[in-house]
């Protein structure tokens, strides 16, 4: 082969390298630099600040509260979504009339942008003249409208519900793809051995869906942890940061208050947290997969 082959290869990937460099790596480097700098409200760095931005976070009680809320939100949405998506995927894997239509319908909310989904839900949940309140009142189940987004408890319930509804399509489709790769011979063999639905579910379906479950959970955790549109459109953290998650809090600190330094420190912290989570999670699941094979 000619000697210039590696060079030609490099030239071919150059556009991608440049694009990824400009769009992905440059912002990460800039954010990292900001997190160690004094930053003015125009997001310009003005000298080294050491760990001051990080230290400020530790004394920021709002940050600690929001961090806890973010973990709660992520666990609730990803956990419930996964549990709900497994039966949805199983159902869609059955042969029934209208299966194609059912699959298509499930994709629709996924195709609409999250922002649009969230804005529609904001009006569905409106405290005074919404569809939900109107229906409940006409059915005489309530005699006063419920201000869903007015207090911490009901607001979180609403935000998490919407978060779950928009996460189900992606999750159940990934799981469906995993289900389709399970060879039907296994079920037939199990049936011959006298295994019922639950036995084959626990001993065949779940273990074989393991890889796809791991990947979807990992992706969902990252998406949901960083999901800006839903909490932002529904409550903007109202009342008093009680329904903020880290990304909405970062946005407020950076763009509403011009505090780019502490905001960058938080962004770096999220980056490290999610990176650590991904590595640990895939490490643990890999270990267990190995044991399983043995």
């Amino acid at each position: 082969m000619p000697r210039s082959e590696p060079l030609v290869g490099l030239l071919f990937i150059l556009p991608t390298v440049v694009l990824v460099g400009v769009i992905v790596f440059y912002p990460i480097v800039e954010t990292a630099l900001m997190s160690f700098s004094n930053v003015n409200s125009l997001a310009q760095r003005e000298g080294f600040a050491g760990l001051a931005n990080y230290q400020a976070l530790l004394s920021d009680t709002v940050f600690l509260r929001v961090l806890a809320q973010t973990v709660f939100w992520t666990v609730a949405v990803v956990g419930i979504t996964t549990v709900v998506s497994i039966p949805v995927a199983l159902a869609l894997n059955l042969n029934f009339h209208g299966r194609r239509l059912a699959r298509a319908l499930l994709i629709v909310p996924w195709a609409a942008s999250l922002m649009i989904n969230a804005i529609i839900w904001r009006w569905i949940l409106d405290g005074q003249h919404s569809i939900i309140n109107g229906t409940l009142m006409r059915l005489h189940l309530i005699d006063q409208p419920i201000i869903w987004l007015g207090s911490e408890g009901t607001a979180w319930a609403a935000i998490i519900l919407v978060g779950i509804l928009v996460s189900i399509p992606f999750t159940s489709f990934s799981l469906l793809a995993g289900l389709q790769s399970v060879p039907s011979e296994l079920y037939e063999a199990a049936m011959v051995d006298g295994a019922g639905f639950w036995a084959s579910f626990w001993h065949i379906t779940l273990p074989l869906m393991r890889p796809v479950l791991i990947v979807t959970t990992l992706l969902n955790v990252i998406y949901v942890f960083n999901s800006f549109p839903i909490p932002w459109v529904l409550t903007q953290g109202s009342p008093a940061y009680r329904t903020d998650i880290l990304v909405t809090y970062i946005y407020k600190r950076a763009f509403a208050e011009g505090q780019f330094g502490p905001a960058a420190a938080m962004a770096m912290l999220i980056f490290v947290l999610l990176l650590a989570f991904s590595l640990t999670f895939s490490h643990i699941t890999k270990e267990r997969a190995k044991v399983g094979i043995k």
Partner: protein
Amino acid sequence: MMKSPFARPGRRARRALALALAVATVASLAACGTSNNSASGGEVELRFLFPEYSAKTTPLMKTMVDDFNTANKGEIKVNLETAPWDKMHDKLAVSMGSDQAPDVFGYATRWISEFAGLKQLAPLDDLLTADFREGFNQKVLDAGVYEDKTYGLPVAVSARLLFYRTDVLEDAGLSAPETWDDLMEAATKSANPPELYGLGVPASGIEVDTFFNYFLYNNGGDILDADGKSMLSEPESVEALEFLTDLVKSGGSQPEPSGFTREQVIENFKAGQLAMYPTGPWLTAMIKADNPSMKFAAVPFPTNDGKEQQTVSVTDSLGMSANGAHQAEAWKFIEFMYQPKYRQVFDETEGMLPELNAVAESAYYQTPEYKPFIDALATAKFQPQHPKFEQIQQIETVAIQKALSGLASPQEALDEATAKIDKL
């Protein structure tokens, strides 16, 4: 070697393709960086960034810019850019931070101290001729003054009055509220939940602080003193928040105001589900478009008995970059824009109050709908200038949300806000 329709191209072709890709990448990146300020044949190009107040803003400004470009053909060409209002601060901050600020731009007057402090705004006093200066409502023009220099000319002036449904208050045997006692009575007596609530109280989203300022200012309170220290823990401020909290608790508004944004409350008022809501003159046009049969009027916001009446007023400003290369041309454009005919059509279309006396005297603004707003400008109180005002607004908002949702007493919430503001 396998030959297929997708066989690998020859070495030379491959190398040429790779090179072409690489060149294209570099070229397109370089294109991003070049300034579009390049003048062709002696024509000066100016960038003009203006916020969108409504869907009508862009066509409206484009007509004016086209007129200017035609009148100055071959000498000055203005390029209009518009952006949604709530993205303006980001957009300006980012462009200023990278030395790409537009030559002329609209912005919120409360940002003057921040932008002037960062040496991004050109002082306009030397450019303002006496004639030009006198054309303005002086009180409104003063809103753009910071540390004795005029940095912004008023654009999009509003004064906030209390809108109320005349039929609802008449049915309850009440007249327009003038004092806080009247307000409390009107809010609680006129309510017929869940179809109709008294006063609209939005405590989520934007302008939560502005809403509280109606009460704060009309109880003789203020956000900051002359040294920029918080006045939110003063007895007047605490009393104002206690009154608002009591009003909500007594059923004078929708319960749980934290569930309502300004946009929702405006929808509720337009739909006839609220008896009262304080806001700017644009609501008149919205009601006429969406619910023309509604009977309503607007009065100055009630004061706590005996206190001086203050009208919460907000202006946006038009300013010039301190670092623009063509300031003389930029100023020529600004003077052109402030011809009464352009301001008249802008103010009328966007539902704003006139910044020019000539427009205020026009028949349109002397009607019963607009006259009260023009008159109210006499008691106008504008937002304070503080380089960290955005942070102060956020802190004030959180305090109000805490008090209204019962997470803290008004005194506790405001003491916490004061501690935070004084640490900024």
